[in-house]
C-alpha cells in the first residue's frame, strides 16, 4: 500500500529509503526516520487499538511516550515484546506489529459488545457486584475478568537478549535535550565539568524536531545540529539518545534506561546488551524534561482521527505525514494556531479553528485568519461522529463558564481533530526528587516550587513556554550548575536569538458541554483513554465520597494505565475539584514515583539476568576435586559444599551409609574449608573472648583449644565454634560457615563501639586456610605418614590441642578436635595448598581405604554424638541451657553478652523447650525433620504442640534411626513416649539422651 498521506516536507525522514513492515497482518511501506506511528499515519491508518474496558476503537493520539492508545505487540517468538507504544517504535525493515487486547482483530472486536453494557460499567461497579453467590467470584466472575484484562502477551521462551548496567559519575546531569537542555549542556560543557545529556527520543532537539521555529535567523534544527556538533566535540560531555531518565533517587542518584539495539530489529546486534541501565551520581542536575500537551475533555473525544494538536504538527513537520485530509483544530490556547498554520502549509485542509476562549486576537490567531482559516471563538466541539474514523463534528457556542451550550449546533465534516487543552510541564522527575509542586492558575498546571535536592528546572518543565526564555534559562542553569559543582565562574554564554511570537493566556474549561448533562446520555467524555475513565466516572467518585484525589484515582483507575496519567491526571483532578467546589490545590496534587516511563525488567536486572552472575557461588580449593569425583553439592549460604559422594549405582542413603561406616571403622576425609576463621590478637584478647563467649578463656593454655557459644544479648545462641590459643595474646577463632561474616562484624561492633580501650585486633583469615578433617580409628596412622616429623601420640598431642608442623611437605596447623566423636585431626594449610593436601591424603590414605565424606555424613555422625548444628537444631530461640549445655556457662563470670537475659521470667522457666534425643519404636523408621511433637497420640484441633524434630537420620553405626528434637520440659521427661506428626502420619517416639553413640567418649582418642 502506498503512503497516501506522505508529503515531501518531513524534515527527519528519508523517503528514498523505503522500509517495509506489517501491521495487523497487512503490509505497508514507510521511510527511514519513521516511527511505526508516523508510518501508519502516512498510510492513513488511525484505528490502532481498542480500549481496555469497552473495547471502543481508538486511534493514534500522541507522538510520544505518553501514547495511551497505540499499544503494540512487536514481533513474534522469543523476542516478541508486549505493550510497546507505536509512537516510540523506530521502523526497521521487516518489522511485524499487531494491536494488543483485541480479538479477532482491531477492526472487528467481539468484546466491543461490552459497550452495550457500558451503562453498568461505571467507576467501581465491580465493588458493588459479583458478590453473590459467594462461590461464583472464584469460579465465574474473576476468571472472566482476568481473561478480559491485560494488554499484550509475554513470550514463553527464555529471553535471548542480554542487558547491562553502567555506573557513572558527573558534575552536571542534564535531562532532556530540547532547546533548554541543549543550552544547559552547552553552558555546563564549556566549563570543563563532566556533563551528561540524555533524552528519551531518537535524536536531540526535543520540541524543535516537531515545530518550525527560527533560531538565529535560520531553521531551529540547524541550531540544534550545530549545538549537538559542539557538544560532541567536547570530550567532557557524554550524550545519550534513546535514553529515558526514569528515576530520580536520593542523593542525586539518577537512573537512565537506554535502548541500544531495538531499532536494528530483533537480534541484529547480539554482541551489544540490548538495553542498558545507567546509574548516575550527579553533583548537580538540570531538569529540562519539557511538557505534555493536554487533551480536551469533550463529547466522544476518543474517535480515531482525534489527536493532540502538537502531535499532528509533529507528524506533518517531522515525518511528512498528514494526520488526515480535513481537520479541525480545537483549542483553549494560542499554541494550537501554530499547528493549524503548519498543517495548512503542509497541504492539509484546516477549514476551522474552534477556540473555547471568547477572544482570540493574538498574533497567531490573526496569522491563521490571514491563511483563510475560520476562527470560531467562545465555542466548543459538542459532538463527534464516526466509529472507526472520525466523520464529522458538531460545534456550538458555549456559556463563558463552560457549563452549557448557548447557540445552535453546526455540523462540519472532517476526518481529524487536533486538540489542545494547554500544557502540563513534565514535573515527574522533579517530584520524584521530593521537590514540592505548586499549582499555577494562569497556566493551569503544576509547576516546580521547592527543590529538595541539588537540582534546577528549566524551560517548559518549569512552565517557561516561550523559546527565547527557555534558551536563556538553559544557558544560565547550565553555567550555575557547573559553578556549584566546582567548574567555571557561573557566567552564562549568550543564548541564541529565537523568533518569539507572543501568546495570550489559555482558558481552562475542563469539561466541554454537550447536548445532555455529562454522563447522562450516550456521549462520553473521556479523561483516561486506555482505562475508559470518563468525566462522569470522576463525578460519580466524588458523589460516592471519594474526595481525595488518591481516592478518585483508585476508585476510577484514572492515571493507573500504562501512561501513568501523563494525559489524564490534571484533567481528572480539575474535574474532581469542580465537582467538590474546591480550588485545585486544595484537592491536592500527585506525588510521582519511578519510573517516568516503563523500564524493562531485564534491564533492571542487568547482567544479573544470569543468576550465577547475580549471586556469587563460593567454592573451596578442593571444589574441582569433589566435582571430578562425582560429589553432589549442598548450598550453604553462597558456598557449595560436597553433600555426599555417590559411587556408581548408589543413592544418597547407600552413599551416606558407606561414608558413615568408613569413618567409624577406618578413616574419612571432609572438606571443612568453609568454616569461618578469625585471627584475634592483643593483650586483652582473652578478656575479650570472656565477654563474647559464655565460658571462661583466661586460663586456656597456649596450644589448647576450646569450644564456645556466642549469644545475642537476648540470651539466645547465635553462633558456635572452636577457638585455639596460638600464643599468650593470640587466638584463632572458628565460626559456622554461614555465621563467619556476621561474627566478625559482631566482634568489631563491640570492640569499636563498646570497649574501644581493649587492645584487640580481629582479622578474617577464613580463606587463608584450607581445612581438611581427617577422622576415624585409622586417622592417626595416616597423619603419621603425612607428617613423619610430628608426634601424634595422645600424650604428645592430646585431644583439644593444636600443633604446628610440616604436613605433606607444606607448613600446616593441625587441630585435634572432633565433630564426629572419633579420633580426628583438622589440617589447616594455606589456601593454595588445599588441593595438594587433599590429593596427598587420598594417595597415602588409599591403603586405609580413605573415604571422602560430605556434609550429610558429617551431620549423621555428629547427630550420633548429639552435637548440635546452629541453625538446624537451633532457630534463634534457644539458650545454652535449653540445649542441655549448662556446662558451657562459666559460673565464675559476672558478665558476658546475653547472660543477663537468662533470669528473665520466660527465659528461666524450667519447662522451656529443650534439646533431647528421640528413638522410634520401629528401629528402621526414620522420622521427618520438621515433624511436630505432642504428648498425646490423639489431639483436639488446635493440637497442643510441645516441640519438633530438628534432626533425623538413619544411623548405620547403631543400625537404628536416631533423631534430635526440641521438646517442652524434655529434660524432665527422659524415657517418656510422645508422638511425632508428619502430614497425617503419627509415630510413637521415646525421649532419650541426644548422645546415642559412644556415650563414654572412648573413641575420640582412637
Amino acid at each position, binding site marked *: 500500500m502506498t503512503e497516501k498521506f506522505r508529503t515531501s516536507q518531513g524534515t527527519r525522514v528519508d523517503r528514498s529509503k523505503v522500509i517495509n513492515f506489517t501491521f495487523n497482518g497487512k503490509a505497508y511501506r514507510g521511510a527511514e526516520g519513521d516511527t511505526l506511528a508516523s508510518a501508519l499515519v502516512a498510510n492513513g491508518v488511525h484505528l490502532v487499538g481498542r480500549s481496555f474496558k469497552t473495547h471502543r476503537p481508538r486511534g493514534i493520539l500522541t507522538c510520544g511516550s505518553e501514547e495511551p492508545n497505540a499499544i503494540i505487540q512487536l514481533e513474534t517468538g522469543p523476542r516478541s515484546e*508486549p505493550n510497546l507504544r507505536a509512537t516510540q517504535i523506530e521502523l526497521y525493515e521487516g518489522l511485524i506489529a499487531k494491536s494488543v487486547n483485541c480479538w479477532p482483530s482491531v477492526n472487528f472486536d467481539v468484546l466491543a459488545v461490552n459497550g452495550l453494557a457500558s*451503562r*453498568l460499567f461505571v467507576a467501581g461497579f*465491580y*465493588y*458493588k457486584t*459479583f*458478590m*453473590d453467590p459467594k462461590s461464583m*467470584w472464584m469460579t465465574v466472575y*474473576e476468571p472472566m475478568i482476568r*481473561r478480559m*484484562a*491485560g*494488554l*499484550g502477551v*509475554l513470550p*514463553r521462551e*527464555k529471553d535471548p*537478549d542480554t542487558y547491562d*548496567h553502567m555506573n557513572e559519575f558527573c558534575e552536571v546531569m542534564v535531562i532532556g535535550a530540547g532547546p533548554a537542555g541543549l543550552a544547559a549542556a552547552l553552558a555546563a560543557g564549556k566549563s570543563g565539568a563532566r556533563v551528561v545529556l540524555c533524552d528519551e527520543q531518537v535524536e536531540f532537539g526535543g520540541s524543535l524536531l516537531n515545530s518550525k521555529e527560527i533560531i538565529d535567523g535560520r531553521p531551529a534544527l540547524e541550531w540544534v545540529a550545530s549545538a549537538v556538533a559542539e557538544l560532541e566535540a567536547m570530550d567532557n560531555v557524554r550524550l545519550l539518545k534513546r535514553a529515558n531518565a526514569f*528515576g530520580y*533517587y*536520593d542523593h542525586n*542518584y539518577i537512573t537512565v534506561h537506554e535502548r541500544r539495539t531495538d531499532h536494528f530489529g530483533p537480534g541484529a546486534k547480539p554482541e551489544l546488551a540490548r538495553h542498558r541501565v545507567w546509574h548516575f551520581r550527579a553533583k548537580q542536575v538540570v531538569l529540562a524534561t519539557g511538557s505534555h500537551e493536554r487533551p480536551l475533555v469533550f463529547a466522544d473525544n476518543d474517535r480515531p482521527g482525534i489527536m493532540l494538536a502538537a502531535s499532528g504538527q509533529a507528524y506533518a513537520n517531522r515525518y511528512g505525514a498528514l494526520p488526515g485530509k480535513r481537520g479541525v483544530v480545537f483549542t483553549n490556547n494560542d499554541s494550537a494556531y501554530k499547528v493549524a498554520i503548519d498543517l495548512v502549509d503542509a497541504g492539509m485542509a484546516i477549514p476551522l479553528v474552534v477556540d473555547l476562549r471568547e477572544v482570540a486576537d493574538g498574533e497567531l490567531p490573526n496569522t491563521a485568519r490571514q491563511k483563510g482559516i475560520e476562527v470560531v471563538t467562545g465555542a466548543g466541539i459538542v459532538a463527534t461522529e464516526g466509529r472507526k474514523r472520525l466523520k464529522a463534528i458538531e460545534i456550538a457556542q458555549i456559556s463563558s463558564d463552560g457549563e452549557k451550550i448557548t447557540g445552535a449546533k453546526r455540523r462540519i465534516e472532517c476526518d481529524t481533530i487536533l486538540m489542545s487543552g494547554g500544557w502540563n510541564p513534565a514535573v515527574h522527575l522533579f517530584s520524584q526528587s521530593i521537590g514540592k509542586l505548586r499549582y499555577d492558575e494562569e497556566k493551569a498546571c503544576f509547576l516546580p516550587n521547592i527543590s529538595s535536592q541539588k537540582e534546577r528546572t528549566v524551560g517548559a518543565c518549569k512552565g517557561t513556554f516561550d523559546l527565547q526564555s527557555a534558551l536563556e534559562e538553559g544557558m544560565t542553569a547550565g553555567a550555575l550548575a557547573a559553578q556549584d559543582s566546582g567548574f567555571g565562574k557561573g557566567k552564562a554564554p549568550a543564548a541564541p536569538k529565537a523568533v518569539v511570537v507572543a501568546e495570550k493566556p489559555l482558558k481552562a474549561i475542563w469539561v466541554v458541554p454537550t447536548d445532555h448533562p455529562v454522563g447522562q446520555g450516550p456521549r462520553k467524555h473521556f479523561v483516561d483513554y486506555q482505562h475508559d475513565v470518563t468525566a462522569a466516572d470522576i463525578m460519580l467518585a466524588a*458523589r*460516592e*465520597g*471519594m474526595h481525595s484525589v488518591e481516592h478518585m484515582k483508585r476508585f476510577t483507575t484514572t492515571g493507573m494505565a*500504562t501512561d501513568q496519567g501523563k494525559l489524564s491526571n490534571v484533567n481528572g483532578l480539575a474535574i474532581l475539584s469542580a465537582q467538590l467546589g474546591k480550588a485545585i490545590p486544595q484537592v491536592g496534587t500527585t506525588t510521582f*514515583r*519511578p519510573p517516568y516511563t516503563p523500564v*524493562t*525488567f*531485564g534491564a*533492571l*536486572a542487568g547482567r*544479573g539476568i544470569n*543468576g550465577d552472575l547475580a549471586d556469587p557461588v563460593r567454592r573451596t580449593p578442593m571444589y574441582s576435586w569433589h566435582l571430578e569425583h562425582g560429589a553432589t553439592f*549442598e548450598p*550453604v549460604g553462597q558456598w557449595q559444599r560436597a553433600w555426599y559422594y555417590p559411587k556408581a549405582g548408589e543413592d544418597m542413603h547407600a552413599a551416606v551409609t558407606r561414608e558413615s561406616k568408613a569413618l567409624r571403622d577406618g578413616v574419612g576425609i571432609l572438606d571443612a574449608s568453609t568454616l569461618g576463621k578469625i585471627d584475634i590478637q592483643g593483650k586483652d584478647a582473652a578478656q575479650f573472648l570472656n565477654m563474647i563467649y559464655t565460658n571462661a578463656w583466661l586460663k586456656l593454655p597456649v596450644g589448647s583449644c576450646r569450644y564456645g557459644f556466642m549469644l545475642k544479648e537476648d540470651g539466645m545462641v547465635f*553462633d558456635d565454634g572452636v577457638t585455639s590459643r596460638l600464643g599468650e595474646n593470640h587466638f584463632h577463632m572458628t565460626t*559456622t*560457615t*554461614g555465621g563467619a561474616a556476621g561474627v566478625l562484624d559482631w566482634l568489631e561492633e563491640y570492640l569499636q563501639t563498646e570497649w574501644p580501650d581493649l587492645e584487640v585486633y580481629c582479622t578474617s583469615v577464613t580463606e587463608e586456610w584450607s581445612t581438611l578433617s581427617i577422622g576415624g580409628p585409622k586417622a592417626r596412622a595416616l597423619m603419621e605418614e603425612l607428617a613423619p616429623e610430628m608426634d601424634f601420640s595422645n600424650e604428645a598431642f592430646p585431644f583439644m590441642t593444636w600443633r604446628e608442623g610440616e604436613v605433606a611437605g607444606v607448613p600446616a596447623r593441625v587441630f585435634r578436635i572432633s565433630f564426629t566423636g572419633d579420633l580426628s585431626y583438622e589440617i589447616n594449610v594455606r589456601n593454595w595448598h588445599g588441593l595438594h593436601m587433599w590429593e596427598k591424603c587420598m594417595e597415602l590414605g588409599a591403603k586405609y581405604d580413605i573415604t571422602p565424606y560430605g556434609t550429610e555424613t*558429617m551431620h549423621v555422625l*555428629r547427630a550420633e554424638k548429639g552435637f548440635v*548444628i*546452629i*541453625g538446624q537444631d537451633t*532457630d*534463634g*530461640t534457644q539458650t545454652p541451657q535449653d540445649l542441655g549445655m549448662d556446662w558451657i556457662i562459666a559460673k565464675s563470670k559476672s558478665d558476658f553478652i546475653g547472660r543477663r537475659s537468662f533470669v528473665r*521470667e520466660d527465659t528461666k522457666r524450667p519447662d522451656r523447650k529443650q534439646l533431647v534425643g528421640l528413638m522410634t519404636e520401629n528401629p528402621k523408621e526414620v522420622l521427618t525433620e*520438621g515433624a511436630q511433637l505432642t504428648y498425646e497420640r490423639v*489431639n483436639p484441633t*488446635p493440637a497442643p504442640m510441645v516441640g*519438633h524434630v530438628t534432626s533425623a537420620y538413619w544411623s548405620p553405626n547403631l543400625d537404628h534411626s536416631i533423631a534430635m528434637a526440641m521438646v517442652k520440659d524434655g529434660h524432665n521427661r527422659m524415657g517418656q513416649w510422645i508422638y511425632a*506428626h508428619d*502430614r497425617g502420619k503419627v509415630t510413637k517416639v521415646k525421649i532419650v539422651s541426644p548422645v546415642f553413640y559412644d556415650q563414654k567418649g572412648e573413641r575420640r582418642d582412637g
Partner: protein
Amino acid sequence: MSRFSIFSLARNAMSWHQNWPSQWRSPEPKPEYDVVIIGAGGHGLATAYYLAKEHGITNVAVIEKGWLGGGNTGRNTTIVRSNYLWDESGLFYENAMKLWENLSQELNYNVMFSQRGVMNLAHNLGDVRESVRRVNANNLNGIDAEWLNAEQVKEFCPIINISKNSRYPVLGATLQRRGGTARHDAVAWGYARGADAMGVDVIQNCEVQGLVVEGGVIKGVRTSRGEIKAKKVAMACAGHTSVVAEMAGIRLPIESHPLQALVSEPMKPVIDCVVMSNAVHVYVSQSDKGELVMGAGIDPYVGYSQRGSLHVIENQLAAAMELFPLFSRTRLMRSWGGIVDTCPDASPIVGKTPVKNLYVNAGWGTGGFKATPGSGFCYAHTIAKDEPHPLNAPFSIDRFITGALVDEHGAAGVAH
C-alpha cells in the same frame, strides 16, 4: 446504607448513576467520643467496625491525618495467608483468614478476595526442613497447608523454573490453597462504609498532634482540628506508631523501615497463584488487571520517606528472573514504598500500654494487610473489655520484658 448488588447497579444505571449516596459521611469531629482510633487504615477502620458490630460501641471516631486507606493499606502487595509457624501467630492469622472468607458478604462490598493459593518456595535443605516444620505445625493447628515437591510446584505454577542448575533451585514449596490476594482499597472502603453506617465518625485530614494524658490515664487527643476528648484512645497508625506513642512518653521496640513494591504493565494472564520466596525476597502475583504485583525486601535503615533504594529492586528482579525467566521482557510500570513497623521478633504488638485506656496495635512488619480483619476483631475486643482477646494476648508489649517472644523470623539456613 444502600445495599450494593447487580440489581441496585442496574437500577442506578437507569438514572445514569446520579443517585448513589456517599459511601461515608465527612463529619466534623465531636468534642468527645467513647473511643478515638488514630489511623483510618484497614486496621483502624476494621477495629471501629467490630467495636460497633460486636460490642455495640458506636460513639467512635477514626481520625486520619491524610485520606482513609492511604497508608500501608493502599501500598502493599495484597497477599493474604495464615500459614505462620508458631501457635500464637498461626491461630491469630487463621482467625483473620476465616473473616476474609466472608468479608465481601459481611461488608456487602466486593473486596475481591481471591483464594488462588500461596506457595512459599524452598531453595535449600534448611528451607525444606523449615517448610515441613511449618506445614506440620499448620496442620495440627487446623490451618490448611501442603508440602509440594518440585514437580508439583511446576504443576501448580507452570512458568516457574525448577531446573537443578538454577541459581535458586526449587526443592519444593509449601502451599496454602486458601491463601490468595484481595483488593486492598476495597477493604478500607468497605470497613469505612460499614462502620459509618453504624454511626462511627471517620474524620479525614485530621492529624494527631498530641495525646492528653493525666495521672497516667489517657483523656483525649490534640489534633489539627482541635482537641477531642476520649474515654479510650487506640493507636492503629502503622509506620508512625513510635511517633504517636512518644506523645504519651511511651517507647516501643519498633523500628520503621521502607518496604518497596512494584507493578508491571498489564499483560494477559501468565501466573494464576501467589509465589513467595523469602530466601531471595521475591513475592509475585498477577492482578485482575493483568499487572504483575511484586514485593521487595525491606530496606535495612529506618525510613519515613516512603521511598527505598533502587538496588533492592534490581536484586529482587534479578532473582525473580531466575525463577521466572519469561518475566524479562515485561516492564516496570510503577514502584512505591510503604513504611513498615518492625519488631525484634517479627511479630506484632496488640494490646494495652503503660498508659491506662491507651491501646497499641503496631509492629506488623509485612504481615499487616493479611491480618486486617483479625486485627480489627481482636483489637476491638481488647479496647471494649480493657483486656486482650485470647488470640492477641501473646502479643502484649510485656513479652519483651519477660522474654516470651514469638519469633517468626524462621530459622537460619544450616550453618555448618
